[in-house]
């Protein structure tokens, strides 16, 4: 055999494994190489003689059954012990993941160190409320109008009080969504500024106020009597503390 293609490429061509370009190129070669043409005929005749011989024999069904039965009995012994350490490791890893995720969620909701994300969300809510027409859902300086308005809109009853005499006149109230839950938002005036006080129930014990700043706004967060309060405004932090003391009285 002098043509090196007769030994290799011809098989790729014969088995339809060449790409279109390679096949076309080999067909051109076939036209001028009698050796490859002969070899291709030999391969075709080899294949047809194999087909005629009906060499393919299916394993008897009983053998198949026997093999499957052997596999069935071998599996519990051979496979599971080998995998067990990995399985325990996987279970341990899953528990760790769940615990970590749970801890993250709880720490956010608990607000023990007042997650920056939560503070940002409330500052955003306060800013949103400053947009025209968004400040209050119920406009009233009367706490006896504002408080009933929340009935049926929330699954809790927020403490609504007017502090007009102390320099924080109640302007109204609205519903807001903070961290995926509906909260009450009370709006107070402070001179020419506005203060949003977000209120939602908590199962945590009372906590003294913690303050922070975000985007030039101040917030003050505290818990009292099963409620969490978060006041957000651009007034001075001292004003927020004064408002907190009024709520605490």
């Amino acid at each position, binding site marked *: 055999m002098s043509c090196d293609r007769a*030994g*290799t*490429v*011809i*098989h*790729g061509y014969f*088995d339809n*494994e060449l790409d279109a370009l390679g096949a076309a190129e080999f067909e051109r070669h076939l036209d001028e190489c009698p050796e490859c043409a002969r070899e291709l005929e*030999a*391969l075709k005749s*080899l*294949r047809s*003689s*194999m087909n005629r011989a009906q*060499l*393919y024999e299916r394993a008897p069904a009983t053998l198949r059954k026997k093999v499957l039965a052997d596999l069935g009995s071998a599996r519990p012994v051979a496979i599971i012990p080998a995998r067990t350490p990995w399985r325990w490791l996987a279970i341990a890893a899953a528990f760790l993941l769940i615990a970590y995720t749970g801890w993250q969620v709880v720490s956010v909701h608990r607000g023990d160190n007042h997650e920056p994300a939560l503070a940002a969300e409330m500052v955003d809510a306060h800013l949103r409320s400053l947009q025209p027409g968004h400040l209050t859902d119920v406009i009233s300086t009367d706490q006896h109008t504002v408080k009933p308005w929340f009935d049926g809109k929330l699954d809790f009853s927020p403490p609504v009080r007017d502090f007009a005499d102390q320099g924080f006149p109640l302007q109204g109230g609205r519903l807001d969504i903070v961290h995926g839950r509906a909260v009450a938002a009370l709006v107070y005036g402070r001179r020419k500024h506005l203060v949003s006080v977000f209120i939602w129930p908590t199962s945590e014990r009372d906590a003294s106020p913690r303050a922070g700043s975000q985007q030039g706004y101040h917030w003050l967060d505290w818990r009292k009597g099963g409620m969490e309060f978060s006041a957000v405004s651009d007034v001075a932090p001292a004003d927020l503390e004064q408002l907190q003391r009024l709520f605490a009285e």
Partner: protein
Amino acid sequence: MIVLRELEGCSYKEIAAITSIPIGTVMSTLSRARRQLQLALADPTREEATHEL
């Protein structure tokens, strides 16, 4: 190799996966196996090197 290609109708890629040899080696191995089969069929007294079939 012959069994996978001619009887089972596997592609070169499948043969490479089943036998754990590089796909580039499939064609040359198949070429050698077919040659031996041709020779064995042409001269039934030759029995050597049939392991590649």
